[in-house]
């Protein structure tokens, strides 16, 4: 892992009307790392990810992707720059089939020759999806929908992947499997920004972590150190 900064979040604030959900936060994402963004409900994690993907406008600050300002771009232009997001909670097209969802994940991939291989790869990671490939995504269970969200985000070959609570609502063994998959795709070269409430497991696979509380960064550092820190142990690990 190098220290090259691939994504720079520079002093951003995001508002919903008058409510400031994220207040002057800054952090860097380094090429090749897994960075965890943890925090309790309503801390501003999803808001931060949406701002990075340009789904929400910034009230102030800027976001740089490989030194290019992206906060003024349209969301689809950011995906074209190989930054993908697997959104929070069942972010799939319920009116499309499993396979159609995966196919849309590959929308920005110009070279169609890898499509079949990518699809096979997705099905290897999540065999359950293969059995249900022709089925409408709306008929999948919550956990399967979550798997589809992740599988679909991989179809774009992202260089940077934002994952919004991938473990939400999943059974423990499946969470385990999902975290293994995240580690694996990171080892294969994808830089990951992982939003989680599941602080322990997230930090265990991460290089670094950031703790967000009511729109402010209250703690950041190496994942190993965070795991040892008292604040984290008290607030998020229930000790």
């Amino acid at each position: 892992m190098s220290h090259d900064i691939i994504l720079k979040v520079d002093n951003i604030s995001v508002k919903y009307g008058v409510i400031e959900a994220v207040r002057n936060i800054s952090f860097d994402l380094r090429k090749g790392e897994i960075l965890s963004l943890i925090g309790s409900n309503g801390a501003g994690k999803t808001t931060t990810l949406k701002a990075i993907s340009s789904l929400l406008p910034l009230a102030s600050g800027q976001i740089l992707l490989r030194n290019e300002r992206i906060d003024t771009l349209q969301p689809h232009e950011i995906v074209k720059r190989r930054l993908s997001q697997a959104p929070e909670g069942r972010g799939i097209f319920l009116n499309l089939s499993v396979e159609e969802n995966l196919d849309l994940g590959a929308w920005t991939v110009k070279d169609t020759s890898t499509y079949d291989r990518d699809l096979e790869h997705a099905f290897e990671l999540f065999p359950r999806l293969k059995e249900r490939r022709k089925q409408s995504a709306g008929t999948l269970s919550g956990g399967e929908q979550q798997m589809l969200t992740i599988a679909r985000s991989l179809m774009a070959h992202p260089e940077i992947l934002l994952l919004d609570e991938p473990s939400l609502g999943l059974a423990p063994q499946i969470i385990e499997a999902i975290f293994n998959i995240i580690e694996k795709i990171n080892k294969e070269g994808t830089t990951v920004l992982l939003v989680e409430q599941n602080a322990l497991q997230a930090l265990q696979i991460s290089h670094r972590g950031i703790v967000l509380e009511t729109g402010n960064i209250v703690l950041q550092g190496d994942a190993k150190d965070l795991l040892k820190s008292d604040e984290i142990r008290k607030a998020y690990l229930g000790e």
Partner: protein
Amino acid sequence: MTEFIQHLINGLSIGSIYALIALGYTMVFGVLKLINFAHGDIYMLGAFYGYFISRFFSLGENPSLFSLLLALTLTMATCAFTGYLIETFAYKPLRKAPRINALITSVGISLFLEFTGQLVFGSDPKFFPQIFAISGEWAIGDLKFNPLQITVFIISLTLMAILQFVIFKTRLGRAMRAVSFNHDLASLMGIPTNRIISFTFMLGSALAGAGGVLVGLVYPKIEPLMGVMPGLKAFVAAVLGGIGNVTGAVVGALSLGLAEEFVVGYLAPSFRDALAFTILILVLLFKPTGLFGTKTTEKV
């Protein structure tokens, strides 16, 4: 029996024209959640574009399938372009505004097209040239078919089949369905949602334009307010089928065409135009989601 079949053919032929218009309503509703009240006027423009194109190429002097297809293609293209302009200049700026703004704008565009139509084309009816003619009548035993009606029906069905293919079998169609499900989510796939919305408008307008030409074949009297009634009826058809649902729009429109024809033929001749609104009220009262509408059906 002969009379019954005649009504059936009339109903399907007018119903298929309603269907061509209803598809645009339902597709635009799918991607924008907007009832585009100017849509019936695109159908009117289609009839006039077809009229001027036919005159320009003197298609009325050589009626043939080629003339018809030429007028149809050019009209569909010009209507698509008109739809593109309307979307770009009237609706796109309102994307982030409350939905009611776009709705009111669409009423404004509708009035604008109708009155500009009267100004430019004149309010006297014009006669659509006969660009397609089949001599004589087709008959099977006692049954006589009006070949024009059959032609209208076949061409409409072909266009609908092409549309169905685009929506359900192509990547572009998949993107349309994705956008109709959720703009933000679609944009996270890298789909340029604005371009897909423009494309949807163009597709809907092209179909309405085709409807305008086809109606000109069978009922050649065209005038600038001719889009009002069919526009409203197509809207009812789309609601009947479940607005946002492509298959529903076709089924709703054919049902409405048939219902009108049979009610007029067997029950109450003066009830033709009232029937659509009766159906609208009944649908809204008893099944607001329409025949095919559920929360998770294929929407465009």
